């Protein structure tokens, strides 16, 4: 707070009312840990920031770091994954809190998965109703009674965190099926160090590039094979999957084969892959597709996808599947409501991270309450992920809400309502290098093998449209490199002495809040800036 410069013209601007900005105080002065960054950006200037953005797009297209988005009229477009060049910074103390909270949550979720397919203690204790569990679309009866090696089910977890208007961290949803995005975390970091190395000079940022090794080690740990002999594969649905890039990336980084269903075959309870030298035993499969598509004998007989007999091998314990079969029951949005209770029940601890206030529509009273204030709440279908089917009350028109109310009344067990979270903001550059606040969330990635490891930071997704809180990349969101600082490295000790009080408010380009005009300009010039096909 000491470095506030009240004489600056910039101090007249404030981040939108009622939102927490992670880098700047409400008066436009940088928070202590962001001072060096703000100075770095000032030194850089808008022009050079914009130029770095163009280099970034060219590099991403060339390397195929792209994401398919669904355009307004349907067809999918392949565009460079939009990495915003202003990093998000998490001081060490904040990260420690998040990390502990997540590890605690994932331990509880893992216990829950084990419990619902075995003893059902939490049901007997009257905490989670059995009928709610069995009515979840991802409750996997085929997983009943199967305990994977080490009792680990949620090998890879990605919980979505948000920051409310008071700056407190909350869990928005849990992803313990096949969370994606880690490849962007790694690629973003590489791109940032190449494009804007100067920004790193005042910080000691914790590395993230060890993720593939963490994952490989975890998969080896749970693989039923002698040490060092486990064959691990990554199973992708194929090149048409929107996250295929990530599947290939992880396989490459771990140095293992990227397989499709047709590569795998089960012979007498054992999984093999077809190689040029015949069949080779596979011990652990990091699968990137849902339960429904892994074994037509157990799940969908109408589907020709999958590896027939895989569940038989899994049941026999000759192969580890990551994540385990049936974890989807734990990231259902109605089950989410009970996670704090799970933490208390299984771990005997108080949850470190709060939930967003949630109402189960299966409760008639809560449903009436929620339907009475539809324009204030967010409505989510319980079995979906990735922002699919979500309605945000305040920005949805009345006829749509009325139609939604009918849908919910017809199958209330498939819906929840949540209070709107006022997502925090982080300055984000437009294509002219001008900064304005945009809403973000955070998806840290945890790997559970012998222990739970969480890669510092995670994927910060940012809504690129002014005011929007939809951060999903499939719906136009971008991302940010997320810096977790080494402890004792908040700008207080290193950055502040180097950069005294004269900081950002004098930046012509760091026009906090002055984005309306620029925004229009950005839209006019968006297309020409898009990279074209190589000659």
């Amino acid at each position, binding site marked *: 707070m000491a470095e506030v410069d009240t004489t600056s013209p910039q101090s007249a601007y404030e981040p939108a009312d009622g939102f927490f900005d992670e880098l700047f105080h409400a008066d436009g002065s940088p928070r202590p840990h962001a001072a060096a960054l703000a100075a770095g950006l000032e030194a850089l200037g808008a022009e050079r920031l914009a130029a770095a953005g163009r280099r970034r797009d060219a590099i991403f297209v060339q390397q195929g770091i792209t994401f398919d988005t669904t355009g307004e009229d349907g067809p999918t477009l392949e565009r460079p994954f939009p990495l915003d060049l202003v990093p998000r910074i998490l001081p060490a103390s904040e990260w420690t809190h998040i990390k502990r909270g997540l590890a605690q949550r994932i331990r509880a979720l893992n216990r829950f998965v084990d419990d619902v397919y075995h003893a059902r203690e939490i049901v007997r204790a009257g905490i989670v109703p*059995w*009928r709610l569990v069995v009515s979840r679309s991802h409750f996997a009866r085929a997983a*009943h*009674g199967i305990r994977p090696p080490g009792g680990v089910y949620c090998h890879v977890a990605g919980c979505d965190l948000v920051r409310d208007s008071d700056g407190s961290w909350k869990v928005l949803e849990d992803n313990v099926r096949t969370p994606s995005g880690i490849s962007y975390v790694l690629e973003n970091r590489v791109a940032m160090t190449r494009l804007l190395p100067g920004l790193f000079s005042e910080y000691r940022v914790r590395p993230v590039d060890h993720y593939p090794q963490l994952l490989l080690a975890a998969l080896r740990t749970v693989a039923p094979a002698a040490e060092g002999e486990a064959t691990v594969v990554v199973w992708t649905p194929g090149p048409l999957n929107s996250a295929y890039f990530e599947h290939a990336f992880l396989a490459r980084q771990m140095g293992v084969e990227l397989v499709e269903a047709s590569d795998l075959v089960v012979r007498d309870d054992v999984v093999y892959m077809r190689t040029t030298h015949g069949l080779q035993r596979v011990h652990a499969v990091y699968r990137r597709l849902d339960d429904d598509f892994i074994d037509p*004998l157990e799940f969908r*007989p109408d589907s020709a996808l999958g590896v027939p007999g895989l569940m038989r091998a899994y049941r*026999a314990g000759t192969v580890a599947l990551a994540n385990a079969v049936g974890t989807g029951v734990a990231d259902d949005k109605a089950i989410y409501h009970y996670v704090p209770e799970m933490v208390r029940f299984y771990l005997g601890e108080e949850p470190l991270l709060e939930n967003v206030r949630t109402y189960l529509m299966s409760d008639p009273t809560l449903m009436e309450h929620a339907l009475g204030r539809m324009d204030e709440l967010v409505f989510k279908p319980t079995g979906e992920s990735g922002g699919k089917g979500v309605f945000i009350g305040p920005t949805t028109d009345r006829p749509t809400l009325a139609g939604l109310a009918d849908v919910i009344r017809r199958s209330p067990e498939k819906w929840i309502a949540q209070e709107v979270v006022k997502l925090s903001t982080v300055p984000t550059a437009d294509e002219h290098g001008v900064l304005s606040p945009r809403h973000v969330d955070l998806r840290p990635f945890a790997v559970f093998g012998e222990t739970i490891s969480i890669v510092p930071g995670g994927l910060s997704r940012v809504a690129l449209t002014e005011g929007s809180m939809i951060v999903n990349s499939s719906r136009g969101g971008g991302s940010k490199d997320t810096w977790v600082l080494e402890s004792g490295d908040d700008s207080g000790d290193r950055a502040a002495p180097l950069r005294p009080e004269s900081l950002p408010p004098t930046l012509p380009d760091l026009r906090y809040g002055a984005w309306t005009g620029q925004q229009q300009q950005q839209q006019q010039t968006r297309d020409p800036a898009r990279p074209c096909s190589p000659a």
Partner: protein
Amino acid sequence: MHFSIRFLTEYVYDAPVSDNLNALRVRPATTSSQRCDEFTVRIEPEARVGRHSDYFGTEVLEFGIVRPHSKLRIDVRARVVTSEPPDPPEAGWEALETEAYAEAAGEYLLKALDEPEEGVLDELQATARKATPLATLRALCDLIPDRYEYRAGVTYVGTTVEEFLRVGAGVCQDYVHLALILLRRNGIAARYVSGYLWAAPADEGDDSVEVETHAWLEALLPGLDGRGEPVWVGADPTNRRLAGERHVKIGHGRHYADVPPIRGVYQGAARSTLDASVHMTRLDPQAGARA
């Protein structure tokens, strides 16, 4: 009653197939009114058979045949002793509202099948509803065959209830699916049962008959006066009666797909022709007079 059952399935492929993987749910269960004394399965070509008990408690036999073959023969033999279940309790509707009932009912009260447009079902549901849950169960066993003709070949394993209602005819599986929906809509927990039925000719003259695998259902009826555990009571809408000692149960589930007798996949573009038969023999013909 004492039966010997032989369930013989033969697939013939018009070109060799390989990696033929199958899961069988054919073993008679052991319950309070039924005991499976002997059970063998022979697969040709030979294959190692793995066994486990699934979520619903049904024994599943799994096997895979790797090498190319153009014929698959599954020969299942079992010996079973059944007894007539006790008379079902007849409690009032209010007994469905208890905690104990809801707990015993579990997921069998939940919607598990796609339901057709409301109109038809509302009418059927209202017509079937009688003074007590048991009376409703009995009424359904007549209502469905009264309204819908039993005719083989017009539906298949994947037929939905909506299609069945539209066609107006079907087989035991379709009858049961409709009955399950109507029972659940009336608040009665109900489950699909797969098994074998001793369907001897009326004069009971034969000791041995050709039958097919059969489907019926079980409804959870509350105990009397709010006392006593709720009981699963078998009912067979195809044969207009409650299930008895002629019914040999394999297993149950929410619907057909939870207890299919045979499910399999193979590699190869060949078409297959299926020949399946269930042969039941009574080993205690002297008891036949009783029925």
